[in-house]
């Protein structure tokens, strides 16, 4: 007769404990780590909305069916998708579950004495024995102290251990990863990011309405904006005359700190942003704003001012639109600006150099409904001409005027604009400290060697020495050799 083996009842707590053990096991952690790597791959192969929204839009146009499927699996927002978050959150829970108990254990071990000397030293690594003269224990004590071993003195034996730095570093490394994650979370919860195009000569006041786009972390709002003022005094872009590649961008600005009345001059370059506490202002892009004056048939100014155009290529051929919604019927200019115009290629010409050496404004004039009241957001650079008709087409150099039956347009001159990116990331210092601590911990854990050395003098006066290197750390033999040489040395 066979009896069924009786299994212990696995209650709810037992099940939870089982799942916790599974999650915090090294095997699970390793699988999660690999999954994290694999999960990041689609994020680099499929265009991501946060990095490249234009490419995502293009993807929708090219293969809408596939795009919908990708969307269903958050394929365009991989790094904020539920499944990616699930993997790294599980990984971090597993990491915490693994590292915290080990940290407590390690604290205890560091304060405890090294373990007792094993009875049979000859079974350990690098075992040696030789006839002693009775002073070896004393010498060993001094040597251990000098080499900063932690020592347990026993009757006729010493047990010494060194290299706790390895585990300390290991734990420090993993705990700092948590700090990095905290830094990232703080940044995304309490951070802020905005952009604004500012023409040379204009002032930018950091208020919510001044930004072209502005986004806040989940736990902050516009009240947290620092109301600094930046006036763009000058902007200089230098280009290589052979390759047309940019060499340097320098913006000179006058800055008024929040709550202050005095201002000071500063420069912003691509690699050196402006800093207000946690907020930094970056020079991200630049282009040209043609300054135009549009008059109606009676000679009244209908619109005047610099209008930022959007660069299309490395030579800053730029497109833009001039909208006159107050004219009746409404007027729109679909325009292109060429800093150095050349009559080749299609579409009326190209720009052959990014600096404005021979600037030209090409435009077509449209009359009808601009569609601004439809409620659908429109690009400031483009005009929906579906309800308009074209009435003229021309090109102007600075200072020239073109007249048409409904009025005139004068291309006065042009100014550069710069795109300021304003970022507040209160979490980044945590991430930085975490990263520094992670490297230090990593170095300690990879190059630290934990080992034990024992010495015993047997009742017959024979000196026995042996050691044990954890994780197969190299160099124990040599160290014990040095130890023994010291013991044998005559005072």
């Amino acid at each position: 007769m066979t009896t069924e083996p009786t299994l212990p009842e696995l209650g709810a707590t037992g099940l939870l404990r089982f799942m916790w053990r599974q999650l915090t096991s090294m095997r699970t952690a390793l699988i999660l780590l690999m999954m994290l790597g694999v999960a990041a791959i689609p994020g680099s192969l499929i265009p991501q909305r946060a990095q490249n929204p234009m490419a995502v839009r293009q993807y929708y146009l090219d293969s809408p069916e596939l795009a919908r499927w990708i969307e269903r699996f958050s394929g365009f927002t991989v790094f904020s998708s539920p499944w990616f978050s699930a993997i790294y959150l599980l990984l971090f829970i597993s990491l915490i579950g693994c590292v915290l108990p080990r940290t407590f254990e390690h604290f205890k071990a560091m304060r405890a004495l090294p373990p007792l000397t094993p009875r049979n030293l000859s079974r350990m690594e690098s075992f040696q024995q030789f006839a002693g003269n009775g002073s070896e224990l004393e010498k060993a004590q001094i040597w251990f102290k000098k080499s900063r071993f932690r020592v347990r003195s026993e009757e006729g034996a010493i047990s010494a251990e060194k290299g706790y730095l390895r585990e300390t570093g290991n734990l420090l490394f993993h705990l700092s990863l948590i700090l990095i994650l905290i830094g990232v979370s703080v940044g995304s919860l309490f951070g802020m990011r905005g952009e604004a195009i500012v023409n040379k000569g204009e002032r930018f006041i950091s208020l919510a309405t001044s930004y072209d786009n502005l986004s806040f972390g989940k736990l902050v709002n516009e009240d947290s904006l620092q109301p600094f003022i930046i006036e763009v005094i000058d902007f200089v872009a230098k280009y290589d005359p052979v390759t047309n590649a940019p060499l340097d961008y320098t913006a000179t600005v006058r800055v008024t700190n929040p709550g202050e009345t005095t201002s000071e001059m500063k420069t912003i370059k691509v690699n050196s942003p402006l800093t207000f506490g946690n907020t930094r202002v970056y020079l991200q892009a630049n282009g040209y704003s043609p300054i135009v004056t549009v008059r109606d048939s009676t000679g009244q100014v209908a619109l005047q001012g610099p209008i930022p155009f959007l660069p299309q290529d490395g030579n800053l051929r730029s497109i833009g639109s001039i909208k006159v919604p107050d004219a009746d019927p409404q007027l729109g200019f679909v325009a292109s600006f060429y800093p150095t115009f050349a009559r080749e290629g299609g579409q009326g010409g190209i720009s052959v150099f990014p600096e404005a050496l021979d600037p030209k404004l090409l435009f077509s004039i449209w009359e009808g409904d601009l569609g601004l009241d439809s409620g659908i957001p429109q690009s400031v650079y483009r005009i929906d001409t579906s309800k308009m008709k074209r009435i003229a087409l021309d090109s102007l150099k600075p200072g020239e005027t073109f007249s048409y039956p409904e009025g005139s347009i004068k291309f006065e001159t042009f100014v550069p604009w710069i795109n300021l990116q304003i970022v507040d990331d209160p979490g980044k210092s945590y991430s930085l400290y975490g990263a520094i601590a992670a490297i230090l911990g990593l170095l300690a854990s990879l190059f630290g060697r934990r080992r034990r050395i024992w010495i015993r003098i047997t009742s017959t006066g024979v000196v026995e020495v042996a050691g044990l290197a954890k994780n197969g750390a190299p160099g124990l033999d040599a160290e014990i050799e040095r130890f023994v040489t010291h013991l044998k040395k005559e005072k």
Partner: protein
Amino acid sequence: MLTTWAYISNYFVYSAMGIFALSFLAHAFETAWAVKAPQQDTNETGSVLTKTLDYTRTERAARIATALMILGFLLLLSGVIARGISNKHVPWGNMYEFSITGALALTGAYLLALRKHDLRWLGLFISISVLLTLGTAVTLLYRDSAPLVPALNSPWLVIHVIAAIISGGVFLLSNVIAGAYLYLHAMESKGDRKPWAKRLPDLETLDQLSYRLVAFVFPLWTFAVIAGAIWAEAAWGRYWGWDPKETWAFITWVAYAAYLHARVTIGWRGKRAAWLCLFAGSTFLFNYVYVNVWGTGKHTYSGL
């Protein structure tokens, strides 16, 4: 004047290629001529032909090969420096420049390691990979010497890129050794090693060596990624943005982290560890080739 320096740089690089080719031939000669004519061995089961290797016979060829390697290194070093002078910046502005610097780093690492260990069995491989790298660089990747774009104009260029290049070189070296491990493992499981392979270290040593290289360079790679993040914060307004290059740097980091855990914590050795090492190294290679040439994002400085 500056273009003159670019020409001088090209001459140096071409001469270095010639010297590396000669070094490759010397290494090949060394290996081939070390094989002695088969000898008749008679034992109780009958007589067999055994081939043996005698490297004392080709010691001179080995010395010549190494001397040529040193000469090639010096020529390439001059080429890289001249390129830097012609650009007026560290020569890491595009993929051509990364490649010649990378080839220089690989040769340098090999020569440095040679001072301590007799690694001349690797020389054949090192010289051919340097030749291939330089060949690709001068034919496919060559771009005229040009100044840096503003985003690259930062002290971090030196720190971040040199850390990445050294890590990459060591990752690839470790990959080569893991590959050799797998090849020799397969050879040994079918019987004895072939004569030419007898000089290569035993499997245990290769296994350990490839692990040691990764363990040694993993902190440096971590540093390269972090230095990149600090630079990105200054240049682009965010320290991490899942740009394709960043994403793949992260994947490489995760893959090597998994490799180290698998070895240290779970005790993977041998074949499994070697495959994982190859996988991790290939993510690095993918990042270098794919993202630089075909990728989008902020790291496309290849100039292609």
